[in-house]
């Protein structure tokens, strides 16, 4: 059975675009007025009477034992209401939960449990203590009064160094996880992932042409402009009330419930308007500490991270060292690939190899392969999700290698990719088959685009060199659990109620779906996202799942509302429901179209004397995945004297399945592309040998400004997904995946310098140009030997590494599964 024959979940949604009234329209953002007038409330924009300010004390060491912490002077400072350290956590949680919280639980290598360092610090800037005081200034002064005695330990901040047997151990209780079990001695190698098929050695040796390269990317930050902020309050009825900037209010509720050991009903979480998340705010940061401070102080506590705290101590994207070898026939057909992806996941396990492998190699048919992924611990902040987690890194390596292969074969880079592009039914590196996808269409869109089809333009800057480069990317597409209610008003309006956070403009798209299915004007639809007490349960927002999954829920809820309205109309008409017709907000009996009732009239009557007010409900937990693909063409100009690189044009072709709101789709694509440009050119954490971050500020952590961003033309390809409403696919994550590689490929085209390490602007370009001129090839395959990893049953030494993360953390459902999805009958 091919995948297109699998039953669709939403079979009535018409794919015929000619019949749509609201779907496909560039309607204005539904919450636009609040945002342009300053009325929208973000994480730091609320306050409560008697509110205190919370602050955290960061560790000045990247790796050190904590010998002692003396908080007495801080506690005694007038205006200070609470001071807590890691050692206090078990007692406080025991009091809150009325249980005996075992201290060992808070001393596990879990970023979710160790919200404050206890016996040792493992990265620079790790919070060691927290205070709550009447003003920010008093809180900061209290921090200076806390005396911490450290005993520094050797620091390791390079993942390859961290894998050597003599490397200092970052955590004492992390044992390498492999497919065949867990190791028995602790190690900095948290996880080893091995994916393989066929005989790759044979395939490589049978190849006419091979290329090898070592590619590196730096640790980068999601760069949301709104720092995390939280306001927590405890009341005498035992309930916690949390206001926070998060990608998932139910995720925070579930996470706090696990951390505090109390049932979720004792916690109410409201998600503020979110000022950017990009995956990072799918994990809790401030909420646990803020909650504990509020409890200890007996007053509401507000916390807001400073920008340097955001950069030093939240969850950046891992840097990677990637060794790739490709083998192909001389006609460009790939025969085999070998790769080792080494991820620096920071000081705690988690961060995932598989996403990078599946994004990097996923677009191509590779008959024989061996891909190894190493998640390695170092004394750097624990990494997290950043928009298609690990995809841009993986794509940078593979797409650069493909470019090198095209060059060696004398083949067009687009033609090489078309030759090996996956189609429906082909399998990805995790052996999961692709359903209907629109990859080739994006490649063809670029191939036929005038910028590619015509000769290269001349440089606009005198003395600069112009180049163009192509790269591809994909994202598997998340699903998750979504639910929506649609409340019908007595004026014929509809209010959608959902507990999913609007991260990327999905409020507006959901309203469009409801308007379309209820057949009422878009202006009559509103949408609210209330707290965890009032909203139906939803997984956090991420993985490009909302338009697809929540869209299905809203679709179903709208159909349900319409069905209920029709039933009530039939009561008012006194006829069977199947004799009632409906169109554009009006009901009538088929045999007598002259008598009409509007939705509003039906709703009013039903509320008064019929079967009651109408609320439609819709929920979804499972849909078939809808992978999305993209091909990007980037044009750059390079100054060969300084290595400066300016991106002057981007054409981004992406399969969006069905563009419900083309403006919103384009906005997502353009935003992802510019993040990719920053990743390629100027962004990267700089650490010194002591493991201290040297650029924890936005001046030196250099994100693109309006002067760095080019015009970005979006080509929206529409190959409908086989499940979900209208054939829609998630849009948000794919756009960032190809961009860094496309930029590097364009730079090579401009100046013949192959830069294999990001960020690349400036000196790396000069060095690459010089290498080319002098015939030096720095991109060599480095083989390394880990030595045997002992696995087997671990008995008592197996520690619970489960962190009280969000109920379904973004990474869980946006990363590809390690096993093939079960096939439906």
């Amino acid at each position, binding site marked *: 059975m091919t995948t297109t024959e699998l039953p669709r979940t939403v079979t009535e949604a018409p794919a015929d675009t000619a019949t749509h009234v609201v779907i496909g329209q560039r309607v204005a953002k539904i919450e636009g007025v609040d945002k342009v007038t300053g009325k929208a409330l973000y994480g*730091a924009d609320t306050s409560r009477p008697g509110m205190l300010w919370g602050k955290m004390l960061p560790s000045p060491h990247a790796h050190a034992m904590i010998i002692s912490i003396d908080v007495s002077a801080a506690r005694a400072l007038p205006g200070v209401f609470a001071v807590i350290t890691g050692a206090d956590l078990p007692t406080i949680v025991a009091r809150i939960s009325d249980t005996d919280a075992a201290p060992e639980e808070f001393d596990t290598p879990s970023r979710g449990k160790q919200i404050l360092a206890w016996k040792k610090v493992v990265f620079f800037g790790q919070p060691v203590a927290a205070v709550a005081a009447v003003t920010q200034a008093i809180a900061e002064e209290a921090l200076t009064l806390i005396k911490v005695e450290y005993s520094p330990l050797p620091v390791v901040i390079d993942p390859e160094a961290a894998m050597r047997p003599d490397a200092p151990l970052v955590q004492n209780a992390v044992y390498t996880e492999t497919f065949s079990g867990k190791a028995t001695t602790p190690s900095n190698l948290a996880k080893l992932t091995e994916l393989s098929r066929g005989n790759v050695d044979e395939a490589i040796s049978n190849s006419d042409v091979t290329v090898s390269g070592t590619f590196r990317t730096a640790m980068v930050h999601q760069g949301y402009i709104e720092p995390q902020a939280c306001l927590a309050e405890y009341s005498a009825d035992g309930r916690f009330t949390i206001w926070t900037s998060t990608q998932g209010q139910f995720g925070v509720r579930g996470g706090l419930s696990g951390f505090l050991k109390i049932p979720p009903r004792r916690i109410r979480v409201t998600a503020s308007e979110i000022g950017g998340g990009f995956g990072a705010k799918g994990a809790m940061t401030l909420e646990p500490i803020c909650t504990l401070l509020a409890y200890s102080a007996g007053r509401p506590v507000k916390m807001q991270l400073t920008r340097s705290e955001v950069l030093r101590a939240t969850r950046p994207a891992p840097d990677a060292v990637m060794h790739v070898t490709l083998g192909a026939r001389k006609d460009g057909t790939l025969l085999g690939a070998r790769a080792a992806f080494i991820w620096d996941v920071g000081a705690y396990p988690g961060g995932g190899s598989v996403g990078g492998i599946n994004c990097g190699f996923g677009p191509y048919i590779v008959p024989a392969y061996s891909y190894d992924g190493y998640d390695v611990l170092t004394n750097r902040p624990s990494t997290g999700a950043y928009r298609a987690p690990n995809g841009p890194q993986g794509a940078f390596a593979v797409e650069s290698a493909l470019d090198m292969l095209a060059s060696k074969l004398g083949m067009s880079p687009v033609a090489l990719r078309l030759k090996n592009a996956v189609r429906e039914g082909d399998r990805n590196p995790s052996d999961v088959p692709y359903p209907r996808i629109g990859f080739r269409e994006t490649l063809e869109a670029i191939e036929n685009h005038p910028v590619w089809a015509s000769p290269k333009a001349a440089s606009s800057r005198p003395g600069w060199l112009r180049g163009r480069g192509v790269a591809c990317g994909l994202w598997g597409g998340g699903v998750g659990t979504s639910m929506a209610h649609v409340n019908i008003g007595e004026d014929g309006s509809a209010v959608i109620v959902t507990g999913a956070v609007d991260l990327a403009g999905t409020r507006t798209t959901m309203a469009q779906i409801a308007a379309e299915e209820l057949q009422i004007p878009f202006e009559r639809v509103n949408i609210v996202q209330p707290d965890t007490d009032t909203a139906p349960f939803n997984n956090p927002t991420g993985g490009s799942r909302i338009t697809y999954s929540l869209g299905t829920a809203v679709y179903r809820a709208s159909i349900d509302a319409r069905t209920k309205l029709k039933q009530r109309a039939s009561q008012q008409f006194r006829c069977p429901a199947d004799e009632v017709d409906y169109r554009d907000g009006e009901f009538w009996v088929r045999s007598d179209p002259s008598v009409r009732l509007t939705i509003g009239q039906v709703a009013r009557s039903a509320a008064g004397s019929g079967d009651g007010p109408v609320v439609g409900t819709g929920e979804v937990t499972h849909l078939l995945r809808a992978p999305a693909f993209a091909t990007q063409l980037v044009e750059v100009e390079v100054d060969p004297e300084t290595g400066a690189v300016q991106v002057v044009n981007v054409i981004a072709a992406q399969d969006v399945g069905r563009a419900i709101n083309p403006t919103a789709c384009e906005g997502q694509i*353009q935003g992802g592309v510019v993040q990719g440009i920053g990743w390629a050119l100027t962004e990267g954490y700089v650490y010194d040998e002591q493991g201290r971050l040297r650029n924890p500020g936005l001046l030196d952590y250099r994100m693109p400004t309006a002067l760095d961003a080019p015009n970005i033309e979006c080509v929206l390809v529409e190959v409908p997904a086989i499940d979900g409403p209208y054939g829609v696919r998630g849009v948000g994550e794919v756009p960032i995946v190809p961009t860094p590689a496309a930029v590097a490929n364009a730079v090579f085209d401009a100046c013949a310098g192959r830069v294999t390490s990001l960020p690349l602007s400036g000196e790396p370009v000069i060095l690459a140009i010089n290498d080319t001129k002098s015939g030096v090839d720095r991109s060599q395959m480095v083989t390394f030997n880990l030595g045997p990893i002992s696995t087997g049953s671990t008995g008592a030494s197996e520690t619970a590494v489960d962190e009280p993360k969000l109920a379904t953390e973004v990474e869980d459902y946006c990363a590809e599964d390690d096993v093939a999805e079960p096939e439906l009958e």
Partner: protein
Amino acid sequence: MAKMIVNVEVNGERQELLTEPYRTLLDLLRDNLSLTGTKEGCGTGDCGACTVLLDGRPVNSCLVLAPEAEGRHVTTVEGLAEDNRLHPIQTAFIEEGGLQCGICTPGMLMSAVALLRSNAEPSEQAIRYAISGNLCRCTGYDKIVRAIEVASKTMQADAAIASH
């Protein structure tokens, strides 16, 4: 440290505010006046989310000490709409998709307003330069630039009508 009084006109209204001298104009706006439209993104003048107009000039309010605001005129995003009608720049941002999460939007709008007051028909390069101190992470700037272009045309058309 003893508090002081700062007299400042905000969005056309005179305010008399009590503050420590080391606080910033951003603190005065957000905490004393509860005008939370202006945002803190970095506290060091690198992101522009706190941009307001000080005597008509765009400034990073996180870098203006409270005493420096004495006797001056401040315009924030809350002061752009008049009589419950949006300013053309606000309308253009909504219609052109010039905002997504919206956190940079207040600062962006203030920089755009300052630009259009001094240059009624700016080129794309002039627009990009004027907003180069306002970081945006969601939009990639493309639709922000379009929105400012559209607003400049609308405002020129309005001015032409008004002058007849």
